């Protein structure tokens, strides 16, 4: 039993370490194995350090969602500029949700009304057996 528990611990550790490790904070608050999709209207795009934030009002129920993403220089390297997310734009955000269920998450990708998709983080959930 202990042996199997230890193996599970090792596998879990490998999984956890496969999450983004070099951000300003731990990603432990996000469930990196899950994705949520929120369609709504951009209320603010905070192009700030240590992280940028996309604030989106959910069209379905009016809830304000707070989505964290990279720092400005990291976003610029991915082609995202301040003008990419103007207030009032309709978007569908694909994100890793906060584990505690509050209205927040870490952006994986953002789909615009024209169908174009901006990928911010790797789409596939981290595999448990990542070496």
């Amino acid at each position, binding site marked *: 039993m202990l*042996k199997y528990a*230890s*193996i599970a*611990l*090792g596998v*879990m*550790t*490998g999984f*956890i*370490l*496969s999450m983004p*490790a*070099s951000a*300003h*904070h*731990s*990603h*432990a*608050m996000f469930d990196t194995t899950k994705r949520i999709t929120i369609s709504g209207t951009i209320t603010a795009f*905070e192009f*700030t*350090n*240590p*992280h940028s*934030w996309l*604030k989106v009002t959910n069209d379905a129920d009016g809830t*304000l969602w*707070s989505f*964290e993403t990279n*720092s*400005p*220089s990291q976003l*610029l*390297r991915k*082609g995202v500029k301040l003008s990419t997310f103007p207030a009032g734009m309709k978007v569908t955000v694909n994100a890793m949700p*906060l*584990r505690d269920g*509050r*209205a*927040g998450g870490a952006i994986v990708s953002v789909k615009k009304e024209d169908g174009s998709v901006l990928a911010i983080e790797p789409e596939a959930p981290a595999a448990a057996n*990542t*070496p």
Partner: protein
Amino acid sequence: MNNSCFRARNRFAVITAITCLLLIPEYGHTQTADFSESWAAYQAMKARAGNKPPASNKLPDWSGVWTGSPDFLPYYRLSSDNKLTVRTSARNVFASSKQPAPLSPEYEAKAIKVLQDRVKGIDWDYVSNCIPAGFPRWAVSHYLKEFALTPNITWLINEEQSEVRRVYTDGRGHTPRDEAYPLFEGDSVGFWDGDTLVVHTIDNKEGTWDRSAASYSDQVNTIERIRKISNDVIEDQMTVYDKLALTKPWSVTFQFTRVTEPADLRIRMYSCNENNNVVQDEKGNSHHVLPGEPGYKDPEKMTAAPGTAR
């Protein structure tokens, strides 16, 4: 030597020893590390190089924007019997043929606890307090880097927290010991050995190489040999000395790669407190405070001038 002279010298030695003891801070160790081993090695390199500061037009060209990567670190995972093993992956370019840090039992236990805590979902990093990552973690920061070279001083600049390492190459020594204290970037002196900048750094704060990597103590000191090995790569060969964290000096090589996309990318001032709502929860874990919740720091209000209506 006559007896009176010997007694006088003895008294002087006793007074000196007592004075030294009184100067030791009450928390039990000196404020700065013993760096005699790395200093001797550095001085030998300096003697071989001849210590001739280059003319401005003889300095290498390290212009441009660069970035570091934690992928040069040996990340660990726990084996089935709770031992540390180096994790290799396509992303982690720290090849298994390289030697991981020879951690002391105390620091190996720390690294194991970090991994065990993460399995429990407990994960925290002091940089989330908007504390600078500091050196030597500086070397693996994945933010942008820029290098400003002059004959007498080189600035090694990191975008994250606008951290700047000043490397004096004008022949001066380290800060006098009675003026020194632990610094995020340490205290660096150096010299040019051809196109290689050799840097000796002491007076660092304790820290971690990365959240899921090993830690170093405030006794850490380093020798670096930094040079451009190709148009797009600057290499930093570092030897790490740390009598608390390591059982012997550890040599590791980091690389900084040129950022070419977008071509006009600039390093800009970075203030971590501009928009930071990460706090440590009661379990010791990272936690986001969201808009509307108690303690939320609105970034617009954070930067508003005094007198602004709220």
